[in-house]
């Protein structure tokens, strides 16, 4: 018996042994039969796997950073400085972590907005949409908690502003601010709390929710665009494996290359260690994904009738968020209805967010 036949038999035996214990055949069959719609909206189908790619990069680089990072008042900034100056290629790892966070949040926004515009949230995918909105919130929470960890002047000032915003919410606002800060003011407890959220609580919640989200997508399949019943070309589909996966790999490779290039040529710097007693630097701004909310808060006057402008703004944002979460229940019409008003609202929101962000950057 030659070597090749021997290896083949052994691998077949191992496959049978594994199949008897794990039962992966069902998963393989499912993937073999899974179809992905192939139409003019297919480009948006890639955003889901792009988010997964950046999430995996975040996890890998985050673990490496956690080997060296110390979440204490005295050590936080120093340990990040050490990562950047002493650890071999530490600055690249930190830069990839930072840039992939930006890419991931951008991909989550694009993913959700595309689903909003093409109305894939309609029956029976209401829960898929809701879990997606929660995933957006968790992703933003990742960004917010991670921003404080370098413990420099900018991150401290941004966290002061960010944790002060919930204070305007009636009844629970003060408690939320105290809970986030671990007290009245930002201290070492805030830092350790944010670190704990960033590396344990949020990843666990995110993984659980991603599990639910992916399960729902697999169970219900990918939606067909509005008008697919009338047009034959809209109903076309290709197998997920290998036809769609090969296409996804091309996108993954290009984005990975872009990520590494940006990380190498535009690495984030580290500011001076935060001073709790120092006044906030002038022109302080949050990360780009919070800019439109920040500017919305700024345009409201100090007082509106019997309450503060901040309270009104926060309540409006909360109402907007709740409406966004329950969108599938508000627009619960049959899938074949075009829903032009919803499309216009989606475009108006995108325009508003972009305009507010630019205004905030220029202001």
């Amino acid at each position: 018996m030659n070597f090749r036949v021997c290896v083949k038999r052994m691998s077949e035996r191992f496959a049978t042994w594994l199949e008897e214990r794990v039962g992966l055949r069902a998963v393989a069959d499912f993937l073999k039969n899974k179809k992905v719609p192939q139409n003019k909206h297919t480009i948006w189908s890639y955003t889901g796997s792009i988010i997964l790619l950046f999430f995996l990069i975040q996890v890998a680089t985050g673990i490496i950073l956690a080997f060296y990072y110390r979440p204490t008042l005295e050590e936080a900034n120093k340990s990040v400085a050490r990562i950047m100056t002493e650890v071999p290629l530490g600055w690249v790892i930190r830069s990839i972590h930072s840039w992939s966070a930006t890419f991931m949040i951008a991909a989550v926004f694009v993913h959700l907005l595309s689903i909003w515009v093409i109305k894939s949230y309609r029956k029976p995918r209401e829960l898929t949409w809701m879990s997606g909105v929660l995933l957006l919130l968790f992703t933003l929470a990742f960004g917010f908690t991670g921003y404080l960890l370098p413990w420099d002047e900018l991150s401290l000032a941004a966290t002061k502003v960010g944790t002060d915003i919930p204070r305007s919410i009636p009844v629970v606002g003060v408690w939320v601010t105290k809970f986030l800060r671990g007290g009245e003011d930002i201290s070492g407890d805030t830092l350790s709390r944010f670190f704990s959220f960033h590396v344990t609580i949020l990843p666990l919640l995110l993984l659980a929710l991603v599990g639910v989200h992916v399960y729902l997508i697999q169970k219900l399949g990918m939606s067909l665009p509005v008008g697919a019943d009338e047009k034959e070309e809209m109903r076309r589909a290709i197998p997920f494996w290998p036809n769609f996966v090969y296409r996804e790999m091309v996108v993954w490779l290009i984005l990975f290359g872009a990520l590494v290039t940006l990380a190498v040529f535009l690495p984030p710097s580290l500011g001076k260690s935060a001073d709790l007693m120092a006044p906030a630097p002038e022109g302080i701004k949050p990360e780009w994904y919070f800019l439109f909310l920040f500017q919305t808060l700024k345009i409201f006057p100090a007082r509106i009738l019997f309450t503060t402008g901040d309270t009104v703004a926060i309540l409006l944002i909360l109402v907007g968020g709740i409406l966004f979460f329950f969108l599938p229940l508000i627009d619960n019409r049959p899938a074949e209805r075009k829903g032009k008003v919803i499309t216009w609202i989606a475009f108006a929101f995108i325009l508003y967010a972009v305009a507010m962000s630019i205004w905030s950057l220029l202001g």
Partner: protein
Amino acid sequence: MKRRVRKQPAIVALIVVLMVQGEILLGRDFFEPTIGKAQAGQEQEQSKAQAQAEPEKIVAGPKDIKEKTAVYFFVGWLWAAIGVLIYVLRLKIKEVDRLYALKFFTPDRK
């Protein structure tokens, strides 16, 4: 006896309101700060001293010319590898699309 029973929900509601108002529910227990004022002051002093002792800003980047060359070479090689892989993947995509169009993998063809 009956009166006392009737008053119970009102008493419970009053206790709940007092708990909420008195910040028992609003985080004076588990979520409240573990540090006292003295410690907070100490932390503030510490952070001030630390901030004064440190340089203004650390700009990230390769440490020396050797690392710089290595990193830039790596980026070059990465893009070259990505180019080759994309070329191979394009060929694979064409092949699998052709086989799918021919219904090569459908059970009834076998």
